[in-house]
């Protein structure tokens, strides 16, 4: 399929692929096995300017949008979902700043994010608030020129490794989700510590930790947007980053498909390669079809967001759900094509399948996102009637 990339997009994609093949592929199994954060690769990504992609030029970025970011995420994910998600989570952490940061905040933080000197993370989820983001209990109480944050965030990607955190907390607990606000909190702020590092099924090179706030005082300059806009900040951020999750899924499936095709041509049974068996061919054909359909949807959604379109919740949800369900199926089928060896940790297939699963869960479960899609359908119908 021809996606009509610009010269800069072609260049970004090819450099991301080079990092993936030369720096990630040789170590992905070890990083997964040891659950080690990929600092050396983060440095390579920074040196290659890949953290600059989505940052505007005036803050030392390349001024590209969500679509170009997706191209890079996909290439990284083709080699390792864990590295891709470390990279994509940085964009997620930076997005609230891009969308709602004031000039001072942007000047202060974005250049370091662009250079890769500082990683970011987004802190929303809590033990009591997953799909129901309104269930957060972390508070940020106004006190003079500061806010005092108390509470715990759970399952935060890049937690502990990132320097800059966007944290959603209740400034007015009596108003529920309408009383939520977004804050920038820097690592090292007194009262801000990290809980345990989670042991995960997949994406094991990425770091997932609790963020613990105990009387953590942040200056009012760190408030993102206005007080009470935390829920909007969250929704707009996630709307913009959902194609990124789709791109992680597309990359994973691409890696799985390529490996499955190569293996099918090499594995012999009944005196010929299994790629000569129609039952296997049909599995491969379905994998390829579904993958390409997901890629089209992810790219088109990303481009729509970049065009400045306002109502993107529905298409963002569609792209994320479709691509991640596809990746779960394609990686599972790839293990099937590999047969017994596919189940063994000597081959990368089982890792791809493990890495795929979480994408159906995070940044909105695929069930809650179907609710979003259905709600939009019903709303439109009601408006017409």
């Amino acid at each position, binding site marked *: 399929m021809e996606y009509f990339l610009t010269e800069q997009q072609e260049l970004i994609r090819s450099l991301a692929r080079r990092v993936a093949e030369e720096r990630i592929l040789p170590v992905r199994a070890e990083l997964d096995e040891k659950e080690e954060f990929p600092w050396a690769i983060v440095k390579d990504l920074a*040196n290659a300017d890949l953290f600059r992609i989505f940052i505007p030029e005036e803050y030392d970025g390349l001024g590209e949008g969500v679509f170009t970011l997706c191209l890079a995420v996909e290439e990284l994910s083709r080699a390792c979902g864990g590295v891709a998600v470390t990279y994509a989570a940085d964009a997620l952490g930076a997005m609230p700043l891009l969308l709602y940061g004031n000039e001072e905040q942007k000047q202060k933080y974005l250049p370091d994010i662009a250079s890769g000197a500082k990683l970011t993370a987004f802190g929303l989820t809590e033990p009591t608030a997953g799909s129901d983001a309104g269930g957060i209990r972390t508070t940020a109480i106004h006190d003079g020129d500061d806010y005092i944050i108390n509470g715990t965030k759970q399952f935060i990607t890049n937690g502990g490794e990132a320097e800059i955190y966007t944290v959603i907390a209740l400034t007015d607990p009596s108003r529920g989700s309408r009383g939520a606000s977004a804050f920038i909190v820097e690592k090292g702020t007194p009262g801000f510590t990290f809980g345990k590092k989670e042991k995960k099924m997949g994406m094991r090179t990425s770091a997932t930790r609790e963020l613990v706030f105990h009387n953590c005082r942040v200056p009012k300059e760190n408030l993102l947007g206005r007080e009470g806009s935390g829920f909007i900040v969250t929704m707009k951020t996630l709307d913009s980053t959902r194609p990124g999750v789709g791109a992680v899924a597309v990359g994973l499936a691409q890696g799985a498909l390529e490996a499955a095709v190569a293996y099918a041509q090499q594995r012999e049974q009944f005196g010929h390669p299994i790629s000569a068996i129609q039952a296997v061919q049909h599995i491969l054909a379905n994998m390829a079809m579904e993958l390409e359909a997901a890629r089209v949807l992810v790219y088109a959604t990303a481009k729509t967001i970049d065009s400045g379109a306002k109502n993107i919740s529905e298409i963002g949800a569609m792209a994320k759900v479709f691509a991640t369900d596809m990746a779960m199926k394609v990686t599972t089928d790839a293990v099937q094509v590999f047969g017994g060896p596919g189940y063994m940790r000597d081959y990368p297939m089982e890792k791809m399948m493990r890495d795929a699963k979480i994408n159906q869960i995070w940044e909105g479960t695929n069930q809650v996102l179907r609710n979003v899609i259905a709600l939009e359908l019903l709303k439109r119908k009601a408006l017409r009637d």
Partner: protein
Amino acid sequence: MNIVVCIKQVPGTTDIKIDPETNTLVREGVESIVNPFDCYALEEGVRLKERCSGKVTAISMGPPQAEQALRETISLGADEAILLSDQAFAGSDTWATSYVLSKAISKIADYDVIICGRQTLDGDTGQVGPELAEMLEIPFVAYVSKVEEISEGYMRVQRMVEEGYETIEMPLPAVITVVKEINVPRLPSIRGTMKSKSAQIPVWTADDIGIDEGKAGIAGSPTRVVKVFFPQRTHKSEILQGSLEEQIDQLVEKLEEVI
């Protein structure tokens, strides 16, 4: 800190062919790359610049197409690149090449460190670095595996030797050649690649750098490649028979024949 890195464009393959008439490498139809050892030299130059600020200038003597290799150095962090290209340079051996490079570097004038790879992939001599230092009459250290300290007019390096390493201090300017243990070269950056596409790469000719007639090219090359050939592989094995003592006697006899 002004750093000059000397690079060479070489064939990107080990499957080389030699022109039996001229005894030189057949370069047509072969992909060209930056000599891999020079990539470590460039990376170290860029790291030194990042450490103490300054400028990295990559230079290469070669045919016009070597410009491509120099563009690549810009995508990898060089600030400027200069191509030394002239019919008068054609056929230069290492001595004549070093002479041309030394004249070009003298023209650059303001330099602190000159870095070369330990050797090239094609010529394999490792001579250009030391010859260059001799011609510029400045200190030289080969096989550098670490730059321990660098400041205005001073550098301390580790040099790999067979059993460990030596620490050597020297005043600047100086020439070093580096081994692959010194760093892991970075991959090209997006900005660097964009810059490399539009970068102006000046071409300096024999007149520009003022070389003496007869000191460059074939005329200035004291070495002649008389013959280049692939060694014949011959395997001859023999299994000695008899008791251990008899076998030892036979072996000693055979060794004496050879010696």
